[in-house]
């Protein structure tokens, strides 16, 4: 089983990703795709006059401020525009697919954070009406059933909190939890960056190999979202996934290139 996460940043060509995915699935390899949608969500939020806001946690992680209105905009893009766009592309390429958010089934469950902290201009505040959390449980029986029926799951946040509300979760970490739960042999995380860069944003400074023990040290190179990707890689390895590759989604055959080692291989 292969789990692929493709980000939602600007410039990512979903047609190229789906071309590659159709070839891989066509060779009989079971695959689960997880996707993001951040760029389109920011655009729609601006258009609807509810500009996106981002929170920096005390330990430097960034995440989207997800009040109820943002969650709805988030669902419109992730579960509507992007998810069904990917499912349509896969059908067009002869790959039966099923688009599911973490709510559906549910596929992903986990705790919603009752409060979060935001650091802004040196001042820290508590935020309570944020719909964010983490994936702890993955519905492996539903996903396995779909794989048996040769239907490719296309998964997207949000997840379902234990108290029954939709929660924004990090797509990379949700993909790691899914890869672990399905005992995937590989997790490929594709974004608009060539991998972990020693001298961000210089693409030629890709760190090609990171062993599990070097993950902490490698963390010092990581900026912004890459920090969460390294956390996701760690969680996948700890979950028993033998190999994680952080690669670029840009250009043709991005998944195959990552599988062949193009990007940062963590194992």
């Amino acid at each position: 089983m292969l789990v692929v996460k493709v980000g939602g940043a600007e410039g990512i060509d979903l047609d190229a990703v789906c071309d590659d995915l159709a070839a891989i699935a066509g060779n009989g390899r079971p695959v689960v795709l997880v996707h993001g949608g951040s760029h389109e969500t920011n655009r729609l939020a601006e258009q609807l006059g509810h500009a996106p806001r981002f929170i920096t946690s005390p330990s430097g992680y960034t995440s989207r401020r997800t009040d109820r209105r943002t969650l709805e905009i988030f669902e419109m893009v992730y579960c509507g525009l992007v998810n069904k766009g990917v499912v349509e592309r896969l059908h067009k390429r002869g790959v039966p697919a099923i688009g599911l958010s973490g709510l559906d089934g549910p596929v992903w469950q986990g705790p919603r954070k009752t409060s979060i902290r935001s650091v802004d201009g040196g001042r820290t505040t508590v935020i309570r009406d944020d719909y964010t959390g983490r994936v702890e449980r993955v519905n492996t029986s539903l996903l396995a059933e779909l794989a048996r029926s040769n239907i490719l799951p296309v998964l997207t946040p949000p997840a379902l909190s234990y108290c029954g509300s939709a929660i924004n979760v990090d797509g990379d970490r949700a993909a790691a939890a899914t890869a672990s739960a399905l005992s995937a042999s590989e997790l490929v995380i594709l974004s608009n960056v060539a991998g972990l860069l020693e001298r961000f944003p210089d693409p030629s400074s890709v760190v090609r190999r990171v062993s599990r023990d070097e993950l902490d040290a490698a963390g010092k190179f990581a900026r912004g979202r890459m920090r969460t990707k390294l956390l996701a890689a760690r969680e996948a390895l700890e979950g028993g996934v033998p190999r994680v590759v952080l690669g670029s989604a840009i250009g043709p055959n991005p998944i195959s290139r990552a599988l062949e080692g193009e990007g940062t291989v963590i194992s």
Partner: protein
Amino acid sequence: MTTTACIECGGDVAIAVAPMVGEIAPCRDCGVELEVLGIAPLELALAPEIEEDWGE
């Protein structure tokens, strides 16, 4: 900054001149973290624990 009494130990808690509801103010003496629940009058309570994981 201005100061007010810590609700745990009575020590000094540094508070911004114009505090924000939800703002965290640590007590220099006993180290607890307090949260500004109200401004006029100033109302403090123990801040909830940090939950570290983050959404998309």
